[in-house]
């Protein structure tokens, strides 16, 4: 049985079910990220693990002990909240040691732990301050410190970075990652930021409307999304989802699309399995990530299946390190990510090169990926 086992868990408020039979097992030392749009039930699930919400159905167990009816203070869990929830009336030091104090740990030991953690997080010089006197990033570290001193079985993070500005967020992300690599602790981490999800996790659970849409490693989720929701949710800019028709071509399969001027475009697919073949002649949705559409120079030299494609450019967005180019395929806006210096102009046609290695195909009805 997994270290933290969420078994068939359901949650209802009144008669509205907001979580539907969620089934996730988290192994010791794993970094599980829950990701999904606002209101999909991430916080609710986290709160149930922490014991802050009642469990309507199913069981949650930690280290083989069912904790459904265990008071939050008895679960040996540490949690970092979105708003940090630092106690404004206590100093940083008191904030960090409060939990130990509540657990009756003697003062010398508390002091020693505090010193250790403060050093680790580089907040030694802040220990006497009140939270009101800290910057966002410092608060975040204090909140983390409060969790770290506890040495809990499981760490829970509820969108701990969403209050920070972009720059700080990147820094803190790296720090959390390093921390996990060093401590090998078991972490469940909620975010709705897909970059955070992809960079931090060992596994990701993508949620939507109370359902777990996909549970897998970041690579699985990014490269083989289970359905169109996952495909469009993960990655920024998100995957281009283009209506196409499946055709036979050159002995393999190809997707037929319409260019900006109505020209027919055929893109050969790398897949050729029987499942996919059954869609021959039928409409499908072709999923291509923006970074797979570039110019001839920018294309990945290890790509096996690249194809050229000439189409009209609608908008160009130079963004320093990259230039985003918007074109349209099959009547839908399609974003391509190019190098910064690429010579591309809005209103003119351009020779795109598409890397089809990682293109995926979805059933337009069920929206699920067609597994080859």
């Amino acid at each position, binding site marked *: 049985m997994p270290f933290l086992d969420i078994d068939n868990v359901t949650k209802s408020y009144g008669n509205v079910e907001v979580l539907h039979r969620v089934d996730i097992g988290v192994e010791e030392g794993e970094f599980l990220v829950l990701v999904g749009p606002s209101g999909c039930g991430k916080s609710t699930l986290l*709160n149930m693990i*922490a*014991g*802050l919400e009642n469990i309507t159905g199913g069981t949650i167990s930690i280290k083989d002990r069912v904790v459904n009816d265990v*008071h*939050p*203070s*008895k679960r040996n*869990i*540490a*949690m970092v*909240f*979105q*708003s940090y*929830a*630092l*106690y*404004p*009336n*206590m100093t940083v030091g008191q904030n960090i040691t*409060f*939990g130990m104090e*509540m*657990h009756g740990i003697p003062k010398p030991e508390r002091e020693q732990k505090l010193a250790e953690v403060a050093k680790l997080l580089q907040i030694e010089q802040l220990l006497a301050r009140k939270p009101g006197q800290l910057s966002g990033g410092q608060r975040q570290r204090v909140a983390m410190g*409060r969790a770290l001193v*506890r040495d809990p079985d499981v760490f829970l993070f509820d969108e701990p970075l969403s209050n920070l500005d972009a720059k700080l967020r990147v820094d803190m992300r790296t720090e959390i990652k390093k921390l996990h690599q060093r401590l090998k602790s078991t972490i469940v981490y909620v975010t709705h930021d897909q970059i955070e999800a992809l960079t931090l996790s060992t596994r990701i659970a993508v949620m939507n409307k109370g359902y777990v849409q996909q549970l897998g490693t970041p690579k699985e989720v990014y490269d083989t999304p289970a359905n169109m929701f996952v495909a469009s949710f993960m990655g920024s800019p998100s995957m281009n989802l283009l209506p196409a028709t499946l055709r036979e071509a050159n002995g393999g399969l190809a997707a037929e699309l319409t260019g900006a001027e109505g020209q027919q475009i055929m893109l050969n697919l790398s897949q050729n399995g029987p499942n996919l073949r059954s869609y021959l002649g039928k409409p499908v949705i072709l999923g291509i990530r923006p970074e797979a559409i570039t110019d001839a120079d920018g294309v990945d030299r290890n790509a096996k299946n690249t194809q050229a494609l000439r189409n009209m450019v609608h908008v160009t967005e130079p963004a320093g390190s990259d230039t985003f180019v918007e074109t349209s395929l099959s009547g839908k806006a399609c974003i391509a990510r190019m190098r910064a210096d690429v010579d591309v102009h809005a209103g003119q046609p351009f020779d795109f090169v598409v890397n089809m290695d990682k293109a995926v195909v979805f059933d337009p009805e069920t929206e699920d990926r067609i597994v080859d």
Partner: protein
Amino acid sequence: MARSDRAPQDMRTTLQNWLPKLVLSPSLAAMMVFVYGFIIYTIYLSFTNSKMLPSNEIIGLENYTRLFGLSAWTTALINLAIFASLYIVICIAIGLLLAIFLDQKIRGEGVLRPIYLYPMALSFIVTGTAWKWLLDPGIGLENTMHLWGWESFKFGWIKDRNYAIYTLVIAAVWQSSGFVMAMFLAGLRGIDNEMLKAAQIDGASNWNLYRRIVIPLLRPAFLSAFVILAHLAIKSYDLVIALTGGGPGRATELPATFMYSYTFTRNQMGVGAASAVIMLMGVAAVMVPYIYAEVKESR
């Protein structure tokens, strides 16, 4: 760069700049006359030989000397100290207790809250008689308990010189503690839920949660409650008149009743004014730091 074409301030801009001050000025003028003007006038009166009506004969500090020579004034001050400290402490304690209890997702909160609050709606002109009855051992609680068979029950404080002041506290607490409850409840509802969750995760029992986290967080509510109660205590008048009339003897005289009786029934307006000035100084001692903090905070 041609600076000469700098446009003169147009009418509208000028008007818009002056309007706020203009609109504020009636209130300010009213305040200056009706509050501060009157305070200055009272201070002036306290130095005059005013008896029944104001007089202009200055007699220096004589009124103050007299005031502090009066044992009734000393009694009133001592009474105020006892009354105010008990009243404030008990109101805050009960208000906090009820607020915390009411905040536990209580069924029937909607019914209980108005019950706790309604005494604030009633003046002692309305409830005075009922209170007098309740506290009167002959017809009130004591008598009722006796009728119900609890013969040894004793509750005759209002008739006892040494205890009457506490009956004032009971009635005053009855009137204001619900309001204090509302203030604390508002404060509690304003506390970030995540903080409470965090403390539980930290292992705090409910007791520790309140003692260490919630109550310290209610500081602003404590402050507001303290200020409101303190000024109510200093101004308490109706209460005394309705319940004890200052008796037994003068055991429940407070500065407010003292001031009123010297100014209006004893025709010693000068002494009354002097006592009013002392009271105002008391109010100021409590209020000015609070107002300063209130104003400071917004900067």
